[in-house]
C-alpha cells in the first residue's frame, strides 16, 4: 500500500514537472508573463486538445517562436490573437472572441437560463391559480 502510494505520488509529481517549452525565458519579465498567458490560450491545431504551451508538436514550437518574435517587436496581445485567428480561424483560441459566428457560444447559456426561467415562472403561475383542496388537479 505504501509503495503504491509513493508510486502514485511520484507519477503526480513528474507529470507536472514535464514542461514542453524548452526555450529560454524572454529577457523582460513583463513580456515573459504575457507570453506565458498567450501560449496557454492558443490551441495547437495539430493536436487539437492541447494548448501550444503543452504540446510538443513542431507546429506548436513554431507558433511559440512566432509569438515570441511578435512580443519582442512590441505587438499587443490583441494583435497577436488577430494574427492567429486570421490564419487559423476562431478555433485557434481557447477563449473564442464574442463576435460573428462565435456570438452564439457566448449568448446561448444566458438564453437557456432565460428560457428555463420563463418555463418555471409559467408553471408556478399556473399552479397558483389551482384550487388548493383539489388533489387530482394538483397532481396533474
Amino acid at each position, binding site marked *: 500500500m505504501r509503495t503504491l502510494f509513493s508510486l502514485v505520488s511520484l507519477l503526480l509529481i513528474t507529470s507536472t514537472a514535464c514542461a514542453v517549452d524548452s526555450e529560454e525565458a524572454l529577457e523582460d519579465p513583463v513580456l515573459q508573463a504575457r507570453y506565458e498567458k498567450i501560449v496557454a490560450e492558443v490551441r495547437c*491545431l*495539430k493536436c*487539437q486538445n492541447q494548448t501550444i504551451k503543452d504540446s510538443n508538436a*513542431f*507546429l506548436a514550437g*513554431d*507558433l511559440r517562436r*512566432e509569438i515570441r518574435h511578435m512580443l519582442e517587436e512590441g505587438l499587443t496581445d490583441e494583435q497577436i490573437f488577430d494574427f492567429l*485567428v*486570421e*490564419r*487559423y*480561424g476562431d*478555433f485557434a483560441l481557447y477563449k473564442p472572441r464574442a463576435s460573428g459566428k462565435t456570438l452564439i457560444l457566448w449568448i446561448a447559456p444566458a438564453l437557456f437560463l432565460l428560457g428555463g426561467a420563463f418555463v418555471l415562472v409559467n408553471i408556478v403561475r399556473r399552479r397558483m391559480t389551482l384550487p388548493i383542496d383539489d388533489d387530482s388537479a394538483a397532481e396533474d
Partner: protein
Amino acid sequence: MWKYSVPVVLFALLMLMLVKGLDPERDVNALPSPFLGKPAPQFELPSLADPSKSVSNADFENGMALVNVWATWCVGCRQEHDFLLQLKESGSIRMFGLNWRDNEVEARRWLQDLGDPYLATAYDGDGRAGINWGVYGAPETFLVGPDGTVLYKHLGPLNWSLWRERFVPYLESSGSTQ
C-alpha cells in the same frame, strides 16, 4: 395541444445534431480555412530546385493553380504522390509545391527519386510561410483561382475520387479545365 410539439421539435433538432456529429465520413480534425474566398497569403521563398531563384504568388497568376504543401517526413504526402504525378500527366491544372519544414537535400532527392509533379517548389524551411497560409498538417492542398483567391483547401492525401468530388466542380464552374 401545440405546446407539446415544442419538446418534440427540440428533441428532433438535438437528434439531428448528434447524428451529424456521428457521421463516419466527417473528418473531425479538418477545419475550414479562414482564407476561403480571400486572397492567398503573399509569400516569396527560395526555389527548392535552385535556391538562387525564388517562387512567389506571382508564379501562379493567370489561371487556376494548385498549391500542395508537402514534406519528406509526411506519410500522407508519399501516399498522394503517385496521384499528383498522374494529375500532372492529365494536364488538368498547374501545380506548385510548398516544401514545408523539411530538409532541403532530402526534399530534392524525393523529387528526383519519385518524380516531380510541380512546376516549381518553394522551400519553407522554418515553416513561416506555412503559418501564413494557416497550414497545420501536411499534406494540405489549396486551390487558387486566376484572381489569386483561395477557392478551396483540402486536408489530407488526395486521390482521383476526392479530386473529382471536391476540386473538379470549381474547375468546371470557372471553365478553365485545361
